């Protein structure tokens, strides 16, 4: 049953206007990234590669938040949710199916964006290397974590607020990555408070290998494995919270 829900959700997400619209936006952005590379006085290839990888992450996160927050809400609005829930199906199966479907669509989108981005870079003469593929993979994991964040916020608030909170979590998640360098400026209980607060937010900086990949800095295999486990841990936690909220929610 989970796979049936996931399949239907994936198809629905792939057909949604916001998904396709943002993919089109990515394609235009990638074309324009080369123009920025031309404007750059030197190292235009590096500049273009940076922008292409950033666009993949930014558009991916926007797709995840836009689609993730609308997913369950549209089911409630169109009353299709009641058809599903009237069947003998546990709510955790429904939520998990929804997340897996969304994750499948986002993963397909990320793969398409990465392929398009790398093809465009190759076509315009920018050097390609394996690190860029790894950077694309970790960006995709970042997007999947953000999809779980969006789903979790949707369970707790309205879709509009969930989208705003999702984007705020993205900004905070990256701010957390810069915190270790700034924490020593705080002392005593303030430092502890900041550290505890930051620990409650997924550290999205772990997935930003793209900033090193463009310079060809290798990613140790152990580090890659740990990052994937870290992403999986947060996804599991956020989906579990979403399940807990929907189990108690009067729909």
């Amino acid at each position: 049953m989970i796979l049936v829900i996931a399949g239907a959700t994936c198809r629905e997400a792939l057909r949604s206007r916001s998904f396709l619209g943002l993919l089109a936006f990515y394609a235009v952005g990638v074309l324009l990234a080369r123009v920025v590379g031309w404007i750059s006085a030197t190292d235009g290839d590096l500049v273009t590669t940076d922008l292409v990888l950033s666009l993949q992450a930014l558009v991916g996160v926007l797709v995840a938040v836009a689609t993730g927050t609308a997913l369950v809400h549209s089911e409630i609005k169109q009353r299709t949710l009641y058809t599903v829930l009237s069947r003998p199906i546990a709510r955790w199966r429904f939520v998990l199916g929804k997340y897996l479907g969304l994750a499948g669509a986002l993963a397909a989108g990320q793969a398409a964006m990465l392929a398009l981005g790398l093809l465009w870079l190759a076509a315009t003469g920018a050097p390609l290397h394996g690190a860029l593929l790894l950077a694309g993979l970790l960006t995709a994991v970042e997007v999947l974590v953000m999809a779980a964040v969006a789903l979790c916020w949707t369970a707790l608030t309205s879709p509009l607020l969930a989208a705003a909170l999702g984007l705020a979590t993205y900004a905070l998640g990256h701010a957390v990555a810069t915190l270790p360098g700034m924490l020593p400026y705080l002392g005593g209980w303030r430092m502890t408070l900041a550290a505890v607060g930051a620990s409650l937010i997924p550290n999205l900086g772990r997935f930003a290998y793209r900033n090193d990949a463009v310079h060809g800095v290798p990613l140790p295999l152990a580090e890659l494995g740990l990052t994937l486990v870290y992403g999986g841990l947060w996804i599991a936690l956020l989906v579990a919270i979403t399940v807990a909220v929907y189990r108690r929610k009067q729909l």
Partner: protein
Amino acid sequence: MSGRGLGVAILVLAGAATAWNAQGLIGHERAVRAKNLDFLPSPAVARVLACGHPNSASRLRWIDAFAYFQFQLDRKDDTVAGGASGFERLYDMLIGLDPRFEPFYQHASLCLGGVAGRHQAELAYLQRGTFHIPTATALWRTTAAVLVTHYHWDRDQTANLGLLLAAWADAERDDGAKTAVWQWQAQLARRRAPGLEEIPYWLDQLRTTSPGSAMGDFVEGILREQIARYGIEILTGVANGRRAAGEPVATIADLLDPPRLAALRMNPQLGPVVGDAGSPRLSDPFGHSYAWRDGVVISPGLELRAFVKAVRGADQRLQTLARERGGWPEDLAGVSAHGVTLPALPAGAAILYRNRHLLAELPKPSHPPLTLR
């Protein structure tokens, strides 16, 4: 309204909007743009604001700052609110966002050393560059060139220069590059002709710029200025030699005197004599023939360059006055009436007034200018 009518209306409106946009984007003349760097976040805050995209944020901020470089080339004062250096604030932020992007250090070197003349600050950035990117050959070469050209390490600090070159050679990855370090030192010694001491430093800076860019034009201009002055010095030496021997100098062609040029140890690549051995001629690096005027050697290219700088200065004064008074003059006559003194015109040059800016129009050189790239 029918569906077809609406479609046509959308097409017409889209065409008008696109044409309007394109009009503002295409066919612009390059004009000096003022840019202020008073409000740049600190490197730590910038990293937070970059939201996981420090590389892209630094590239976009860097490209946006190009207008500031052009502004600085004319103003040469990067002081920002609070008395800090705008260049240093900019490069601290950019390097804080991505310390592995070599052009940041190259630009810092060019702007702080080349434009602002602050070579100690320039060396500080170069040192940070070689620390973060030890294999950046260009940064090592520029460091060595600064220390030799501006601090005379080849004369006063030979042991330390040796240590620096050894560290550079150590950092290079392949044997060819390691050997090139010592070749660089040998090449430097050969170029130490009086008046050409700074040429290796500026040639290094030229490599970090792209042709046609504001910075590229700036560095090429400095190189041509120095080479032209060297040419004047050489030709004046020939003229003095002839006068001392009782030989008259009536025209510039009289200074095309191979024995005396050889006696002065003229640099064959950068000296004032160009063309093949069969038909040598005297040409400044701007492509204009040197002139003999009132008993003095003149480089018309150098005169024209001074004229261009004077016109840019007049344009800056015009922009300031016009903003203060809230209006621009209608034509060139109105510019003088506005209180802006226009520079004297060299032979064949003119001043144009277009799009509220003063522009210098120069005569075409008689020969191809010296190739620097």
